[in-house]
């Protein structure tokens, strides 16, 4: 234990004592991006911090391996936060954990370790990776899947009406997020009924992935507390916008002073590194889509007619493009960034950030050339116009995305063999189940006609 870690550990132990924390929740994430939690008493904490907490990994998605099912949870003391909801007399706290093998090596099935490894690689190349996602989600009256979801209001984009009951839930959520050190940039009512958006302020990718996990739980907890239900399902209602997780990305040098994407002498203010990063994202977009959009339902959001990308293209201010380069003030060098618009909020943020980073870095390392900006609205072009312009479609189903991922050495390297194989196997099974299912759509359409 280094001196610094020792001090951090002391700080956490002291804090638990002084604040009268009753339970410490050790959080980690499975391969699909579900938050897992093991609660321990303060008495067990010191040992957990020093040696890790042994748990049986065989019941956890993507962790199971027949020979060695035990894993060690090693809490990261810098992530210690008390949870601001619940009874103030029964304070509980959480810490994110790195998952290790019983011998203390990084466990290859742990998404947090995957992201750490990819950030280390970026660091070796001289970069630190910053991200800022825009989180969209819906509030419904309940989470009962057997009846159609009931929106809480019929408001739309930026609506501010007394009818907006969800506004109160969102406001309380913001307060909770801020109390946990998750600063929010904007929050507003989105386009669809009962749809909301909260934009998180940029931070390093590891903290942000932790924040996304905390965010999803907080939004759900506060909705539940107020008798509503929040969902990050990408497309819960047909005929209206789905929920995306547009992610703003930038690279800084390791001093953190210089934005590697910024070059004021160019028209877009975008450096060669920035252009190569975009090129990398575009070239590898089909391969990483299964990770950024991992559900059967994700592909019902990625359709023409809504503000979701369906083609591999980039543009300055065209919201149908897959990569958008937001216009920034030339003197604000820190804000030069790009926005990757495919991901949805049901992704595993550790894996999704890893893949976006790896695709972009590949572009830099290989010196990919960025093609011309797509000036037209790609939705309105005909298939042949798109072909002539070299604009490929994004995978249109989970099946297509998995096929693109299967052949990708980039994704295999990024995720590591263990997660790569498990993910493909698990998602193939999801696709098979979906394919075998007879839906209401089919009954409505065919039962009487044929």
């Amino acid at each position: 234990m280094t001196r610094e870690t020792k001090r951090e550990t002391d700080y956490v132990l002291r804090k638990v004592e002084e604040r009268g924390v009753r339970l410490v929740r050790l959080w980690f994430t499975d391969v699909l991006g579900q938050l897992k939690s093991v609660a321990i008493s303060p008495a067990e904490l010191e040992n957990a911090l020093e040696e890790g907490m042994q748990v049986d990994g065989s019941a956890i998605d993507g962790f199971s391996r027949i020979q060695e099912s035990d894993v060690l949870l090693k809490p990261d003391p810098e992530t210690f936060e008390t949870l601001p909801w619940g009874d103030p007399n029964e304070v509980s706290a959480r810490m994110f954990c790195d998952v290790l093998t019983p011998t203390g090596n990084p466990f290859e099935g742990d998404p947090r370790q995957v992201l750490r490894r990819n950030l280390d690689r970026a660091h070796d190349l001289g970069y630190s990776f910053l991200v800022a996602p825009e989180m969209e989600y819906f509030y419904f009256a309940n989470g009962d899947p057997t009846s159609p979801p009931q929106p809480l209001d019929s408001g739309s984009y930026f609506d501010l009406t007394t009818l907006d009951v969800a506004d109160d839930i969102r406001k309380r959520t913001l307060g909770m997020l801020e109390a946990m050190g998750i600063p929010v940039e904007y929050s507003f009512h989105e386009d669809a009924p009962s749809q909301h958006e909260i934009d998180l302020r940029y931070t390093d990718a590891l903290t942000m992935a932790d924040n996304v996990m905390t965010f999803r739980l907080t939004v759900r907890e506060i909705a539940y507390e107020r008798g509503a239900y929040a969902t990050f399902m990408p497309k819960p209602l047909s005929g209206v916008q789905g929920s995306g997780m547009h992610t703003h990305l930038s690279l800084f040098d390791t001093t953190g002073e210089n934005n590697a994407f910024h070059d004021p002498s160019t028209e877009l203010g975008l450096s060669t590194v920035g252009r190569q990063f975009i090129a990398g994202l575009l070239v590898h977009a089909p391969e990483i889509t299964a990770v950024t959009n991992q559900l059967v339902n994700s592909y019902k959001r990625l359709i023409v007619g809504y503000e979701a990308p369906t083609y591999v293209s980039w543009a300055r201010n065209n919201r149908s493009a897959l990569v958008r380069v937001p216009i920034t003030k030339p003197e604000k060098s820190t804000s030069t960034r790009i926005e990757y618009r495919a991901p949805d909020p049901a992704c595993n943020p550790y894996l999704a950030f890893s893949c976006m980073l790896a695709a972009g870095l590949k572009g830099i390392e290989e010196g990919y050339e960025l093609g011309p900006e797509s000036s037209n609205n790609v939705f309105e072009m005909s298939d042949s116009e798109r072909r002539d312009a070299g604009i490929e479609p994004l995978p249109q189903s989970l099946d297509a995305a998995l096929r693109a991922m299967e052949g990708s050495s980039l994704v295999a390297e990024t995720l590591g063999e263990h997660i790569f194989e498990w993910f493909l196997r698990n998602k193939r099974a999801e696709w098979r189940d979906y394919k075998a299912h007879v839906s209401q759509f089919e009954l409505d359409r065919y039962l009487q006609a044929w």
Partner: protein
Amino acid sequence: MDPLLVYPDPPPRELVQTLDLAGYAWEPLGGDGSDVVGDSWAGAIVCANEDPEGAWAVCRALRKREVPIEPLLLLVAGTQLDELDLRNELFDDFCLAPFHPRELEARMRHLSWRTGQETRPDTVEYGPLALNLETYQAALDGEPLDLTYMEYELLTFLASNPGKVFSRDTLLSRVWGYEYYGGARTVDVHIRRLRAKLGEKHSGLINTVRSVGYSFGQSRWGGL
């Protein structure tokens, strides 16, 4: 925190004000220094500009003890510099009178650091904010403020130096103290997290100083 001995009794008004504002405990020293008892003194400040002979006697007495009282800071007038030549062993540092309060504070801080004396107070308070350096507790308007370790360290550093502007680099090296992945952006990110936790009402305690860095609250010395 152990008190400082201050000669003469009563000490000059500006000295009292400076020590009180900086949060130092002190006690006046009236006689020639020979009757000082106990060893729990954080050091001494001796004013030699009014009554140099008395002051030298006090310095000698404090130095001659079995456990000498140190550090010893001398306040002298500009015209007395020659008198210091043969008396180097009597003091650890000196400050010209009239002195600037910030200079005196900085010299005291540096002296106690050099002599290994811990004169850092146990609590840092600023307006609604209270930080206990002993227990790591933080409170805002009397309510507990839950911070992570680095947030706590950053806030403590800033709040211990109100009004002082720090560059991101300085904060990185002083607070993080080791090479950290995000470099300067790490500082920005933590400042934002702190502001979020301070809430809308108090987030203004941390000021952004454009193209320089950050500062906390107002200096006790106004615009200086």
